């Protein structure tokens, strides 16, 4: 198994050094192998998005180092980082990040356009992916004309179209009903199983987390616990619920909800 991601003692401190600084992630380490489907869970404000952003090379780490595909992120120039994101990473953001001035088609096509792919290839891929995700009828609409769930699906289509090596998802099912959520998770699981796409997914939803091959629990910016499925998905679901209940109980006396 080839390691794809290695985070070593990373910390993230917001705010100016000294005055009112807030450390969102502290001294966290973990590794991810190629083909893994990792879930990240934790209470709101525990630093999940912050962690994802650092892995996504969007936010520099304050301390520590992140290595992706054997390359240290801190050693890359800004342009290299851009190219790296465009070629190797796919994003599903917590707040969609669709571009309002472009049609859904153009939004989904963007990662391929950035590589200057052929028009025919772009069209085929967009039709294919949007068909899978179930927004084939909305391609000529603008994001402003879509519902929250439809926007999210468009964002997912955009994240998948260029078959990234590492897919980063921040609560991809947050705005979906349970049936749509299931479809999406099945899609992700299939991508992971068939195409060996590595997925790192932040989620609040235990059912979503049960699709993962490993779940990391984060609390107050620190890695609290790790969970690997030992039996069926349903059993894993129950295990996750137990751990979450435990986490809640420990922080129940005054911590953040």
């Amino acid at each position, binding site marked *: 198994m080839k390691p794809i991601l290695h985070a070593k003692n990373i910390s993230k401190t917001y705010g100016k050094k000294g005055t009112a600084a807030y450390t969102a992630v502290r001294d966290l380490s973990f590794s991810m192998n190629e083909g893994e489907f990792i879930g990240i869970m934790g209470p709101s404000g525990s630093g999940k998005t912050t962690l994802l952003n650092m892995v996504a090379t969007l936010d520099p780490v304050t301390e520590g180092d992140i290595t992706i595909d054997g390359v240290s992120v801190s050693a890359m120039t800004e342009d290299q980082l851009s190219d790296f994101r465009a070629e190797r990473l796919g994003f599903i953001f917590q707040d969609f990040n669709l571009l309002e001035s472009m049609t859904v088609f*153009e939004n989904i096509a963007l990662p391929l356009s950035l590589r200057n792919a052929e028009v025919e290839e772009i069209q085929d891929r967009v039709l294919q992916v949007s068909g899978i995700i179930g927004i084939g009828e909305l391609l000529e609409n603008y994001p402003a004309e879509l519902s929250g769930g439809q926007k999210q699906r468009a964002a997912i289509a955009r994240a998948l179209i260029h078959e990234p090596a590492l897919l980063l998802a921040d609560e991809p099912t947050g705005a979906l009903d349970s049936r749509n959520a299931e479809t999406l998770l099945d899609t992700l699981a299939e991508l992971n199983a068939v195409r060996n796409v590595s997925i790192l997914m932040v989620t609040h939803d235990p059912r979503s987390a049960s699709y993962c091959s490993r779940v990391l629990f984060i609390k107050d910016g620190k890695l609290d616990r790790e969970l690997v499925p030992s039996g069926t998905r349903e059993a894993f679901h129950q295990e996750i619920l137990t751990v979450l209940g435990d986490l809640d109980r420990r922080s129940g006396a005054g911590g953040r909800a």
Partner: protein
Amino acid sequence: MILKLALTGMRKKRRDYLILFTGLIISVAVFYMFLTMSLNKDFIARNSVINHIQPVFLVGTVLLSVTTFFYLFYTNSFLLSLRKKEFGLYGLIGVKKQQIGRVFRLETLVITIGALVIGLALGVLLSRVVSWLLMSGLDVGFAEFKVIYVPAVMWTAVYFLIASFITSSVHSARLAKTPIIELLRSDVQSERVVKKPTLTALQTMLGVLFLGIGYLSLYFMEQLRFIGLFTAPVTTTAGTYLLFAALLPVIVRKWKRNKKANLRGINAFTSGQLNFRLSSLKWVLATIAMLIALSAGAIAGGFAFKNDAFLSIDRSWQYDAALYNPGSAEIALLATIPLQEQNSFHVKQDDTYLYYVREELNAAPPLVTDWETYRVVRPEPLPENMKIEDDYQIIPDNWVAALETINPALAGTKSFRIVPLEQYERITGEEVSILLARTADFSAYLQKWQALEELQNDVYSTMMPGFDPKTDAVTSKYSQFKSQYALASGTFFMGFFLGLAFLTMMASILMFKILSGAANDIRRYDSLRKLGVRRKLLENSISREILIVFLFPGVLGLMHVLVGMRLFSFILQEPYYRLWVSILIFLAIYGGYYFFTVHLYRKIVLSHQ
């Protein structure tokens, strides 16, 4: 409390205010300059040349105050729209509408006062420069000219304070009528999708038709005359607005339809941005195209007027100097000028008549412009018998012109009699000799004509009792040239600074419009960055997008100017004289604004990267 609210609110929108501020400062400065030029009493009264310029600057002041008022009104409504949401929040926490209105008026007042202070300082500097330029250009001393002129300062302050009071009152009244919920929502209104084209074909056709009629009437101005004066501005303006409304969205949609280009890099993003921008800005852009035409036209008109002073003086004066009783000083000076022709004439005058010698006139008939053929000719020899009717000697028209040419200073003062030599010799009366001189190029020897004029002042004083060279001027080519040139220079400066003021105002409106949308774009550019778009690509996308927004009105506006300068063919011989200079000035200012806008825009949307 209210003051604090106002200040924090302004600090948040510092950038938008700054842009508005620059436009305001420039208009205050130009306004003040126009006023000092037209109001400086002592300076005007003592200076016969400046007398001619004064009304020009007054006209400029009126024009400027009208446009400035609209500018203030427009920008003030922008300011309000920027702050609507914030004001809605104040309303939500229980601040009264009246208080919010007061906050807004106070803000506007503070800005106006700030702009007045800086603008007046700049205006003083500008007046200094302009008066110096006028002085050296016209060869007159401006000893009495006061750069800091209190009444002008006062009137500028009064005008801007009143105008800002009116505009902010109107807008705060409008604010009071808006329900809080609407204020709160005003930010949310998502940029709607561009409407599908309806009637665009008809609109485009009408636009082209109107513009065509406008251009044709400008081109055939001389034939159409007053009909043209009406149709040209109306149809050109209508055509411009129609074209911007109909054509711009169509063009962008065409771009987008070209899949191959559109799906390359972030072209889809750029054209999508443009699509939104052009459709939300089309009225502003059309207005800007018209203002560009006006301002570049004003600058070009100024140049053409100045040039025309030389052309028209040569048209009405064939001889560059007519020297009365020239003494040795005049003869010596004249000898230094290469002359094409010189002739001497004699005139005797008594209480009622000026007498000319027929033989002398016939021997050397002077060049005159024939008013029927507009050709420069020498009149046919005078007939033997010239009848006298009603005490008026009947002679050919060209000879009347010839007598005025020979004797410009006195011809208008008395009736004339052309008499044979023998009769002339018997007339008792004071005799003057007049030396007519003509060169190939009047404008090449201006200093010499001026020197001759000064020498002649002594002669004038003895010839015409009560003549005071300080206040009076005798009709001569040089003196007429001087006042025409002063007028033309005044027009030139007015056109130049009016154009400059228009241009800065409208460019700042465009800049303001673009930048006020930038806040919404921060997220978009951030998304692109997250998706792995290189910074360089984002920067290029911004330059291209804004370039096109600037380009459309710029091109159409310049086209208007190119055709529109025909308008001046009414009064000017060469309306296109040095048009390139004004186009260059326009390009420099407009280009400067473009780069500045791109710079600021990049700073706003790409800053945190």
